[in-house]
């Protein structure tokens, strides 16, 4: 095996990086892939609670970097999917506890034994972001159909290209098809027009995500939920499969109109 290292980032906070990381991890692992999710948000860890693994943390990523434990000892196996692992971030340290070189060295150790290493980047464009993209083979940029999130995504796309990690692929998260349809939310076409980047997923706003987060069960564990299905589609596209994009109200022309008439919303 030789793992593909995928960093999930956004610039702006709160657009769904951690949720996307957990759910893409779940979706990949549920097809039998061996996946390690790394929380690179040192000092503000959250991937553990989203995955529902917060009670099983003994060692964290900084413990590995500073040699207090082996990489293997910091890996927590998921409760439901036995090919899914989490390496949690340290909660009482800051971003300077890890360097881009550490990230490259430790993820290289994982390459041999796993298929995917997903890195959950912190918000911002500083050290934590630079650590997170250092080892990436592919960068996924998460954004929401809002002016501020798209603007920050554009900045991130520029930085990723400057680091020669580009061009990256876009996940448009928290789309409300009904608002797009009535012209009160940027649609997929609008966002792609502005950012000029390849799309890898469209995730509809879905209350199940909040319910799932409350319970510490990533929404993709339920492949029938609207958001869950969208994350499974992203996983399939990452594996190189051709999965058509659902129209979430933003498409024009004949097919857009037909699918708007037929669909209640959400990727199918």
């Amino acid at each position: 095996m030789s793992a593909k290292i995928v960093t999930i980032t956004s610039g702006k906070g709160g657009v769904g990086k951690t949720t996307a990381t957990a759910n893409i991890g779940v979706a990949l692992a549920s097809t039998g892939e061996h996946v390690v999710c790394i929380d690179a948000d040192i000092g503000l860890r959250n991937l553990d609670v989203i995955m529902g693994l917060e009670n099983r943390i003994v060692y964290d990523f900084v413990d590995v970097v500073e040699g207090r434990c082996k990489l293997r000892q910091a890996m927590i196996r998921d409760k439901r999917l036995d090919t899914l692992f989490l390496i949690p971030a340290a909660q009482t340290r800051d971003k300077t506890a890890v360097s881009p070189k550490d990230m490259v060295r430790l993820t290289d150790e994982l390459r041999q034994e796993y298929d995917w290493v997903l890195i959950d980047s912190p918000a911002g464009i500083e050290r934590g972001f630079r650590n997170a993209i250092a080892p990436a083979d592919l960068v996924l940029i998460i954004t929401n159909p809002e002016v501020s999130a798209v603007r920050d995504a554009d900045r991130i796309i520029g930085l990723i290209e400057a680091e020669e990690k580009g061009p990256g692929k876009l996940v448009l998260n928290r789309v409300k098809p009904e608002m797009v349809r009535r012209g009160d939310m940027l649609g997929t076409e609008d966002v792609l027009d502005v950012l000029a980047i390849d799309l890898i997923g469209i995730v509809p706003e879905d209350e199940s995500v909040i319910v799932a987060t409350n319970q510490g069960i990533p929404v993709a564990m339920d492949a029938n939920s609207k958001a869950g299905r969208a994350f499974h589609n992203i996983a399939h596209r990452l594996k190189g499969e051709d999965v058509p994009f659902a129209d979430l109200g933003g498409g024009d022309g004949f097919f857009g109109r037909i699918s708007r008439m037929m669909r209640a919303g959400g990727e199918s």
Partner: protein
Amino acid sequence: MNFFQKVGMGRSRSAESAKERLQLVLIHDRAGISPGKLETLKDDLINVISKHIEIESDAVEITLTKERDQHRLVADIPLAPTRKRRHSIS
């Protein structure tokens, strides 16, 4: 209908303004020139050009535009009305 929809003259199409605003702000972001910097540039330009030609300072417009991948600085500098110019020369 809420306040923001009323602002849009009863026809709510706020996604359009979102897109237009985004496109404008990204032109500035990508070129690394803030609207304030552009204002300063405009004032400097007016000063320099005014040394040579009489212009309508208040009507000068400096804008950043983007066509495909080419960013462009566009200056629209109207000259002072001809009659006034003749007068000032004489």
